[in-house]
């Protein structure tokens, strides 16, 4: 049996091979690309998140920002002990409004709150805070 007799079928088979090869090539490139794109996007998201975290928690100006806390109440009500990376502050005789101000400021500072203690004595509040950065 001669292949020449099946020339038409051979032409179609060759075209079919190209068709299947083309599809397979596209499919492999597509799936590989999707996976690669997913990895790259994930890496970008991780790097962005890391930089954002570093900006928040590794902020070099945090020490200056912490000083703002001292000025939020009258100087006579604050006992302030600050070292390079640590703060121990005691606020005494605060009103409820002042407590709210102090706590809100502490919460907004990019510091690790090691301990926060609030106690009410009569109508006044005593706030003690230890934090580091």
């Amino acid at each position, binding site marked *: 049996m001669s292949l020449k007799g099946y020339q038409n079928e051979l032409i179609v088979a060759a*075209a079919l091979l*190209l068709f299947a090869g083309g599809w397979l090539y596209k499919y492999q490139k597509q799936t590989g690309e999707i996976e690669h794109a997913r990895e790259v996007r994930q890496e970008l998201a991780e790097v962005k998140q890391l930089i954002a975290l570093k900006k928040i*928690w590794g902020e070099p100006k945090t020490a200056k920002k912490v000083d703002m806390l001292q000025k939020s109440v009258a100087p006579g009500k604050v006992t302030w002990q600050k070292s390079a990376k640590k703060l121990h502050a005691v606020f005494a005789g605060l009103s409820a409004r002042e407590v709210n101000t102090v706590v809100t400021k502490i919460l907004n500072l990019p510091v690790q709150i090691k301990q926060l203690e609030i106690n009410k004595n009569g109508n006044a509040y005593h706030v003690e805070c230890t934090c580091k950065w």
Partner: protein
Amino acid sequence: MAPQRLEGAVNVMLTPQFYTLKRESLPVKYTYQAKKIAPSLFDGLLDEDGEYAYYVQKSDDGWEFIAYDLDKIKQFLHQKGIPAEKIGKLFFAQQAAEQIDAPVSLGESQALVNLNGTVTIVPKSALDQTVQFAKPDVSWTPKRGIAAGGSGGSLLTARQAYALAGVLVLFGLMWIAEGTRYGGDVKREQGEIARLLEAYPALQSSYTRKSVAEKYQKLDRQERRKRDVIKALSKMIFKGVTLTSLKIDDKRFGATFSTADKSVAQKLKLLAKKEKFNTADIKGSSDIRIEGQL
């Protein structure tokens, strides 16, 4: 013609007894147009019991139409040991008119000659005794030929095969083209990563990134949790509720609220439950203790 014993496929050039030639000068430009009118040109010239196909080619002064009965040709060739599947292409001697400038011997008594552009068979006796017969040039074949349609059990005609192959090739090429386009989609992201790492060289090593991420993610999670707890506790201060103490450190928190009456205390407990905090009544008072782990 003597019976043949063939190993492979062959092309066959048909002598004029297998076809009918007609020349016409027609005002048509393309072969397909000429082919359409070919049957009408042979009206009354061909055997009525034959099934004819037509081959058309342009000549210097018009068109040459060739009518042939493929079944009869195949039948003849089959009898001579050339089955349809061994036939590559069929050509007509008329197609080689320009190549036949000297008579070509066909067996003992006949010769193929070119008479004014028409290839025909004449008895050798009609030729000059001194004539030199040319040997056919088997290395040359006309550009176009006809396929012995249906030969070898082929299921597709050439037209069907080419149409189908065309569509398949088109799709194949489209997919290849589409496949080559992939690869540029994340270049923007890769560029952004490179820019960020350039700005923060300390993060270029993946090990460093991992350890820095572990440190800051843990810190961020813990500090956010502390702040969320304090905010949740502050929302529990409403009319009739007073915060009397609060203590929070890295591991746990606890707060004591004094309440005006039992209904307020109940509402406070509900709020604490909603936040999944533990609650406890303080004996001898309407105070509520709320605490939990961080």
